[in-house]
């Protein structure tokens, strides 16, 4: 026994190194497992507040870009107003419409930390549990999907960005409703890939990709991007599609967190 102690004390430098590496790897694994994350991340109080102060100073420098984004979003929303549509059938009238229940509610938030360079990117926002945000909610920006809420503290939330290796989003091609999955391959923050589109589907460069609405995270029809390139590689059963995102994650400032009002009911019936 004493020899063992002597051995350990003589080589303590190596053993301490090994111990610290084991702790680090445990932290990495624990942090990567979706949801089992730890309190040391940027949604905690210290990091959140420091980022908040920095963002308060730096947001003035990008007001112009933010205004343009908001203007584009306003135009898109204005185009969806009912006043734009002619009423062609006068026989239908509505009285206390019970056919349309509100399904999604949006909570707006400001981004206080963001990155696009890493393989796995995260975003921190300045709203948390006190504002009604819970883990697993979808997050959208002015021009499309942003990510999924991972952790919440009372005042801040940490979001897994679309630019993350664990991220998969159910999407479809707008013109023919074919379902696929959006993932990020890394490297270019303006490009994502769409998987599982079978080769009989007719594709064209410039086809719009939107969310499918099957995942309960996002409403149907949130824009994602347009098809940039597509090919069928030799021996593959599916297209290899490169999608150019509408949104530039690099100058993103404000986002909306999507609250699905019937989520519990839906999950209950799906797990039954």
């Amino acid at each position, binding site marked *: 026994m004493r020899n063992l102690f002597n051995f350990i004390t003589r080589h303590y*430098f190596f053993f301490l190194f090994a111990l610290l590496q084991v702790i*680090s790897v445990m*932290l990495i694994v624990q942090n990567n497992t979706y949801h089992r994350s730890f309190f040391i991340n940027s949604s905690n109080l210290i990091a959140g507040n420091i980022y908040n102060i920095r963002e308060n100073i730096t947001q003035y420098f990008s007001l112009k870009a933010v205004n343009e984004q908001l203007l584009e979003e306003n135009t898109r929303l204005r185009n969806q107003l009912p006043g734009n549509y002619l009423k062609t059938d006068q026989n239908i009238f509505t009285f206390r419409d019970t056919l349309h229940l509100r399904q999604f509610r949006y909570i707006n938030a400001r981004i206080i930390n963001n990155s696009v*360079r890493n393989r796995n990117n*995260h975003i921190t926002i300045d709203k948390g549990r006190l504002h009604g945000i819970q883990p697993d909610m979808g997050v959208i920006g002015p021009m499309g999907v942003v990510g999924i809420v991972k952790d919440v503290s009372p005042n801040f939330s940490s979001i897994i960005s679309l630019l993350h290796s664990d991220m998969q989003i159910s999407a479809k091609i707008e013109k023919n409703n074919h379902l696929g999955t959006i993932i990020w391959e890394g490297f270019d923050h303006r490009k994502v890939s769409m998987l599982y589109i079978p080769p009989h589907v007719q594709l064209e460069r410039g086809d719009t990709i939107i969310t499918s609405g099957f995942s309960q995270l996002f409403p149907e029809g949130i824009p994602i991007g347009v098809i940039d390139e597509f090919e069928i590689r030799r021996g593959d059963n599916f297209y290899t599609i490169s999608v150019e995102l509408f949104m530039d994650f690099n100058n993103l400032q404000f986002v909306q967190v999507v609250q699905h009002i019937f989520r519990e009911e839906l999950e209950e019936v799906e797990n039954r």
Partner: protein
Amino acid sequence: MDFKEIRHIARFLIIIGIQVLILNQIRFSGFITPYLYPLFILLLPFNTKGYTLLLTAFFTGLVVDMFSDSLGMHASATVLMAFLRPWVIGSITIKTEFEPDVEPRLNVMGAGWVFIYTLIMIFIHHLSLFLLEIFRFSGFGETLLRTILSTAFSVLIIMIAHLLLGSQKRTRAL
């Protein structure tokens, strides 16, 4: 707690502050990331005890992790770098005896030595960090390219920091 410890703590806060608030926000073509914070480990005195070296590295990495949502990755890479530090110093230095509290600085070791030392250490750190980030070896070519480009930027920034640090004052009678 004398002047020496306070100086180390102040240096730690400044270096981590620059890393987290400024450098983490820089995006060179979405591909290259400069890291300044390993400088804190590089600058520890030659006679730093083994456990101090490793625990300081672990803590430094953990603080950077906390701000970049990458729990454990920076800690692991920094600990590896600190573990190899005595070996790197031993293999590129002829003189092995130093006065207490002497730090590896420009005026002590000369610019060439500091450059080689920084280059080797930063390369170890970046390679291990980016491999952990990818967590597989399939994209090894891209990871290596990313490591080399980021190493170049980090070494540049650290050498500039060395120049700004000036020379280590010998106030104490030895």
